[in-house]
């Protein structure tokens, strides 16, 4: 048996009631996942450590705002982690460097997926299909931005296209993706 969404929903409800043992449990079950996400975006361990702390303090303070009808627990927590990490790297203007991004929090095969996210398998396949329908380079831009935290400038350098062009590509790709997913 793996940790399911309902376990996390229950833990978040207990955390909202200031139950420290539930918080310890939640941290134990989810911190490696969030740290992987933060590390990929922030690209620096010192920064990732700091962001992870802020994220869990936030989860402790805002667990009562979690609404299971609007997001899965892990998606809710992952969004907090992504947003904090992105705020931090954009604010500090940390630019992509070749080494650290590959160092940790690597991309894994969807088949070797984290158990707590297994319930997302169907949606994952659907998003994968829709990304597959984009022109290859545009799908790659979307993946690099979301998974690697690349900014428009970094994408511009990597693809040898002006920033304005990247923005246009991004918007077209995102619209196409949205249409495909809602089809």
């Amino acid at each position, binding site marked *: 048996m793996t940790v399911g969404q309902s376990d996390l929903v229950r833990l978040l409800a207990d955390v909202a009631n200031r139950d420290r043992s539930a918080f310890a449990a939640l941290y134990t079950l989810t911190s490696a996942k969030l740290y992987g996400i933060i590390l990929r975006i922030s690209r620096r361990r010192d920064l990732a450590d700091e962001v992870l702390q802020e994220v869990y303090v936030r989860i402790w303070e805002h667990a009562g705002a979690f609404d299971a009808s609007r997001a899965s627990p892990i998606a809710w927590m992952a969004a907090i982690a992504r947003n904090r990490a992105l*705020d931090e790297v954009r604010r500090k203007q940390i630019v992509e460097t070749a080494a650290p991004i590959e160092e940790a929090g690597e991309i894994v095969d969807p088949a070797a997926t*984290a158990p707590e996210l297994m319930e997302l398998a169907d949606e994952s396949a659907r998003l994968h299909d829709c990304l597959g329908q984009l022109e290859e380079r545009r799908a790659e831009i979307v993946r690099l931005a979301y998974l690697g935290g690349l900014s428009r400038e970094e994408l511009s350098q990597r693809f040898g296209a002006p920033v304005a062009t990247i*923005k246009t590509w991004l918007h077209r790709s995102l619209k196409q993706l949205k249409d495909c997913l809602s089809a």
Partner: protein
Amino acid sequence: MTEREDIDMLAAEYVLGTLDAAERTAVTARRQREPALDAAIEAWQRRMAPLDVRIAPVAPPSEIYGQITARIDGSGVASTPSVTAEVVRLTVLERRVAFWRRATALAGAVAAMLALVIGFRDTLLPAPPQNFVAVFQKDDQQPAFLLAIDLKTRELVIRPVTAEPLQQRTYQLWILDQQVSPVPSSLGLIDASLKEPTRKTVASIDPAVLKRATFGISEEPAGGSPTGRPTGPALHGRLIPAAP
């Protein structure tokens, strides 16, 4: 482009991560007062979330949990365990694990039980922690149970995580402190439905013993172990940083 499309693309780029610092700050402020933007962001988070599956988990440094709880408690001072503390912790844990194995072998148990909750951190750090957490795992998989101890109230909370209710069998909690007894003693059964955390107050046990003792959870016949010692398959534990 319509205003609605503008909002949708802003939300999409916010979620994708391609906005610059100033744009992100503006969106963070706007979504508080613009439900349409907030909803669009949530919708894009739902669309993209499946990609999170592809990011491999990375275990964070062990001291971070203590730093988080220190922040939550408002002390503002995060404890920084020294390298020595880590080494001592590992050594003591290994010794205790080895002892636990010998003890259960003596007791005739099938599997080695182990576990944790060790309080030596307070001999190395200025502020003695009052809360300890133990994780019980099966075959290094997901945690089956979590045990939290508050030394002030001497309350134990055993929380099932992935553990499943047993058919005509039960889970039993054990404590082992070599200075008190060479064999584990029972702390009682765990609520068999596993729907709620089991709470126990162990007022008769000295906090010093609780801190240095090891804990284990075994599967037993309904009503508990017939021998007074663990007899069934046991759950293995792993130490996680205690909250200061």
